């Protein structure tokens, strides 16, 4: 499966560099964030791959690294019974990546959650609101600089 994926992806997207990471029996492809939607569409629709289930979209905050955030996609192909992980780096200065909810509708809420927790904007998302925190909340709680105890007064009380 690894060879097949590598071959198909490099053939389809010759201009993009795919970094292949393999650990704990899991396969990960890391590439530039500009290609995320075409790659996902290709993985979902190509015969023989058919990654039809988008299990999760989430992000990791590396705090001190140059590309501060990594957006992580977990995909599953029911046909091949194979799980694939995709990763794209996002920098804090340009904190956005295109939404894949046009490819899988399942990505809608996880992307909202990542936006809520990390402040990463998902471009062309149909309904980008906060998932858990109130809309008036100003911080991004899962960023490493947000204290575990919270910030007093950060969560507004209900109006009535």
């Amino acid at each position: 499966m690894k060879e097949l994926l590598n071959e198909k992806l490099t053939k389809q997207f010759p201009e993009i560099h795919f970094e292949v990471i393999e650990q704990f029996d899991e396969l990960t492809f890391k590439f530039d964030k500009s290609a995320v939607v075409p790659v996902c569409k290709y993985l979902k629709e190509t015969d023989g791959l058919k990654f039809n289930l988008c299990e999760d979209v989430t992000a990791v905050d590396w705090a001190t690294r140059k590309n501060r955030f990594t957006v992580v996609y977990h995909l599953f192909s029911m046909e091949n019974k194979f799980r694939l992980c995709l990763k794209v780096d996002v920098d804090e200065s340009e904190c956005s990546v295109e939404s894949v909810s046009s490819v899988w509708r399942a990505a809608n809420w996880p992307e909202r959650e990542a936006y809520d927790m990390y402040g990463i904007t998902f471009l062309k998302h149909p309904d980008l609101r906060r998932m858990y925190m109130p809309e008036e909340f100003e911080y991004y709680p899962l960023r490493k600089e947000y204290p575990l105890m919270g910030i007093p007064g950060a969560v507004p009380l209900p109006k009535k």
Partner: protein
Amino acid sequence: MQKLTKDDVHPKIVQALLGADIHLTIDDALENEMILNMGPQHPATHGVLRMLLRLDGETVVACVPELGYLHRGYEKMAENMSYLEFMPHTDRLDYISPPANNVAYALAVEKLAGITAPPRAQYIRMLLAELARMCSHLVAIGALAMDVGALTVFLWGLREREKILDFFDVICGARFTTSYARIGGVASDVTSDTLKNITAFIDQFEEKFDEMERLLNGNRIFIERLEGVGVIEKDDAVDLGFTGPNLRASGVEFDLRRATPYLFYNEMDFNIPVYTEGDCLARYFVRADELRESAKIVRQVIDKIPNGEVMLNSPKKVLPRKTEIYTKMEELIHDFMIVNFGINPPVGEVYHAVENSKGELGFYIVSKGEGQPWRMKIRSPSFANLQAIPHLVKGQMISDVVAIVGSIDPIMGEADK
């Protein structure tokens, strides 16, 4: 349920509800359309799910679920505690089936740390996970029946569940928040008497469940409230991220116990019930069939369970036994190091998913080689399943919303994390 005015609803939610249609005024009582608030304090929302419904008469035009009323920030907390310390918090995710969550979490950490629990521990985990699945489905079926007006089944379901909780009490020391799995095994062994009692319970359970099923399957009101309500097609179900019984009710034969076998599920003989209708009734049937399959697995586990250790002997990763801590220096040091500094798994990232009673429960752990995870993401099935609610309730009557939410079986502790 309460009718809302414009000031009550955040503009962004209003926009999500109305879509492109902005001429609607939500204040005018004489208008045919209105916006109604359902939950978070509503008995049929299974916890604290809040839904804003845009209604045309009694028909739902649009629905916006609002989450976060039970958001406790477990992912943030996990980054600030050791791997072992997080175990009790997994109980509180899907609080109807705590042992299954413990097992899922332990498996993810073990994959990261590169250790495998001994066979007996894995069998015990399977036993607990299946009993938890039975618990969860009994509550799901009972609550669904209660939502559409049949109270008896709920009480009968809870009666059976109570017996399972008694086994949890004997095995884990707690009825509810079990915290039973450990990294590298389980907390304590199961006696042969307990196994005998579980077999006796399973023997009488099938008969009892037949009785319960007769109550429901012969109940015309129950069938008519569910049949053809909240239909979701196969492709939509996959696209919207359904997993577990909800997906199998839409005709997709997908079960992680078969697709990516873990523990010893590949040695077990069980069927995966699949229904193709995709309505609320099919979701109920899948759960009912799965209960019987779980009972079958429990029986096989008790037949096959091997003798041996229940904790791995791996001093740097697994807590040593209490008696040895008190008598041996080496074990005392390891215990001190593990409790205070954590198990320090290698640098890396791992995603491990199991088939929980609600669907796919996955843990994504990023380790920097420290005692605490750098990032832990919980992929909870209820969260993904709830996402389909707007799709399911569209065009249905307002009374069907209750049946649809009940048939999806969301647990807010897990959806809100």
